[in-house]
């Protein structure tokens, strides 16, 4: 070893603790936007945490801006329904990693994620449970939108639930501040965000000036999933996703969505014509509650300017009619096994699309809405 290398390895630099000295990795529990996630235990306090690795491979522009955004956003947001960032740790730099430390974000640990819970047939959500899940989800979303932040990766796997029934929005790896202005007008963002199945029509059609409505669409997809138990629109490509949306929400025409024809990809993608809006009809076999259907319908409006916002959603009758939202800890106390999507058997990923009418459900877990 050269003297220089030895100096680097032995250098003690304060402020940032050594991850493996402080925490003991237990199991891998997920794959985040920019790295792996582990369950770990604090060697001293025995506290269980989640460790998310910051991938730095081939990073030509220094510390990844996505990681920096996630850190900054989580420092800015402190809310019961937003996952809490405890600290940032690093690995030891040495010859084996070309003297570059790996960084880890340390989060409070949550026992379950919603995708994991939904894929387990033994987990049963009552209407009151679903209300509590959605109420907390919209509360968290309202808070982050109020702070001018877009999540941009709403999906069931990014919704964590503790064993005490507290819901936490997680994975802010794609999140960013919105509403910024540049000298050229409203700031434009990339539209290549949000997992395809939860991606709203405006992003699929190439909109680059978007807002909180994109997260509400995802929340709507998650809400429907509470009954269908699997993602409602599982497209394989952007084109396929647009087709699925049109079949559920009706054709994307300037009549229902003024200005849609001006979006960049409107002419480039094949946008189905003559489809009727069937949100309520198709979801009725699963969702028997009238208020739930009405809220779902409003969250899945194709025109983002008419889509309901979080505040209005929280005031919707769905949350205020009987049965009242329940305490989730009662239902969760029946399950002492952690449930994460990563650990669960795959939920019909890459399923070959078929356009069929929704079948009335025959048992607790269904294929898809159509």
């Amino acid at each position, binding site marked *: 070893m050269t003297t220089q290398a030895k100096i680097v390895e032995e250098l003690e*630099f304060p*402020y*940032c603790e050594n991850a493996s000295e402080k925490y003991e990795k237990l199991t891998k529990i997920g794959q985040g936007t920019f790295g792996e996630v582990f369950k770990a235990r604090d060697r001293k306090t025995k506290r269980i945490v989640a460790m998310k690795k910051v991938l730095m491979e081939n990073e030509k*522009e*220094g510390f990844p801006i996505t990681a920096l955004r996630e850190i900054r956003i989580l*420092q800015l947001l402190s809310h019961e329904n937003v996952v809490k960032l405890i600290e940032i740790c690093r690995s030891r730099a040495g010859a084996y990693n070309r003297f570059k*430390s790996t960084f880890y974000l340390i989060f409070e640990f949550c026992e379950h994620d919603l995708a994991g819970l939904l894929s387990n047939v033994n987990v049963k959500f009552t209407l009151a449970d679903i209300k509590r899940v959605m109420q907390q989800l919209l509360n968290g979303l309202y808070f982050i939108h109020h702070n001018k932040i877009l999540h941009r990766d709403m999906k069931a796997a990014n919704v964590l639930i503790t064993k005490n029934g507290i819901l936490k929005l997680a994975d802010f790896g794609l999140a960013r501040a919105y509403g910024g202005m540049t000298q050229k007008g409203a700031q434009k963002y990339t539209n290549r965000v949000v997992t395809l199945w939860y991606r709203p029509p405006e992003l699929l059609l190439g909109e680059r000036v978007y807002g909180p409505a994109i997260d509400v669409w995802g929340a709507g997809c998650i809400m429907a999933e509470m009954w269908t138990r699997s993602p409602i629109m599982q497209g394989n490509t952007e084109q396929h996703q647009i087709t699925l949306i049109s079949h559920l929400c009706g054709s994307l025409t300037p009549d229902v969505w003024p200005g849609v024809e001006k979006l960049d990809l409107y002419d480039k993608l094949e946008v189905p014509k003559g489809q009727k809006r069937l949100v309520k009809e198709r979801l009725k076999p699963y969702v028997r509650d009238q208020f739930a259907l009405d809220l779902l319908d409003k969250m899945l409006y194709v025109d983002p300017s008419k889509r309901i916002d979080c505040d209005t959603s929280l005031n919707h009758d769905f949350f205020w009619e009987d049965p009242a939202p329940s305490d989730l800890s009662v239902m969760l106390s029946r399950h002492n096994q952690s449930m994460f999507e990563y650990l669960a058997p795959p939920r019909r990923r890459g399923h070959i699309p078929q356009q069929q009418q929704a079948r009335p459900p025959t048992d607790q877990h269904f294929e898809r809405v159509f």
Partner: protein
Amino acid sequence: MDTNAVKVHFRVIRFIQEAGLKLRLTSLPIATAAVIYHKFFRENKITDFDPYLVGTTALYMAGKIEEEVVKLRDVVNICHRTLHKNKPPLDIGETFWSLRESVASSELLILRSLRFKVVFSQPHKFVLHYLKFLKDWFDPHDWDTIPISKTSWAFLRDCYHGDMCLNYKAEHIAIGVIYFALLSHGMEVPYHNEADMKWWQENPNQPPKMVLSDDLTLPTVQNIISDLMTLYEMEILVQS
């Protein structure tokens, strides 16, 4: 802090501001770069690190933090050019790549020394709101002819030449620079002598509690102004 270090910091901040403007960054990221720089040297010795490298890195990081991302390549080229005005522009070669590598490494070093705390409260939005609030009290003609807001913004920009930004709350600095601007132009807020409260104080009994400070005292305002004046004296020393 010894005078020598103060002078170095003064020069580096001027370098940060000049390079920042050339990179077309707005005032907020440039101010954030200055805060990062001062924070770093509050905890580290100036003899241990090259202040211009820290300044360059701070500028690069501030772009990321304030969502005005600049390419590392451009930061290296422009900072090199700003620092070596008589040398030819940097060629792509060993020097360029090692400078780039240095900035990338010191980014991690600075992040660690900031303990990854990358949320900064800056006086800018306060200055904007306070000026808007004050404008309504003034005679429109006076407000248009006397550059109170221009002077306030200039004081704010200049205050980063020292480490004032670490010693006062953002909203206090905002009031300090406006107060000083009013003093410099010999202006008074109309009717302020008849008012029960000073214009920069907040009446806790009266909503809205949105603007102006409820915990600012006159001595703090005076300290801010005196710190600013010390900086302007420093300018002469630095140039000589």
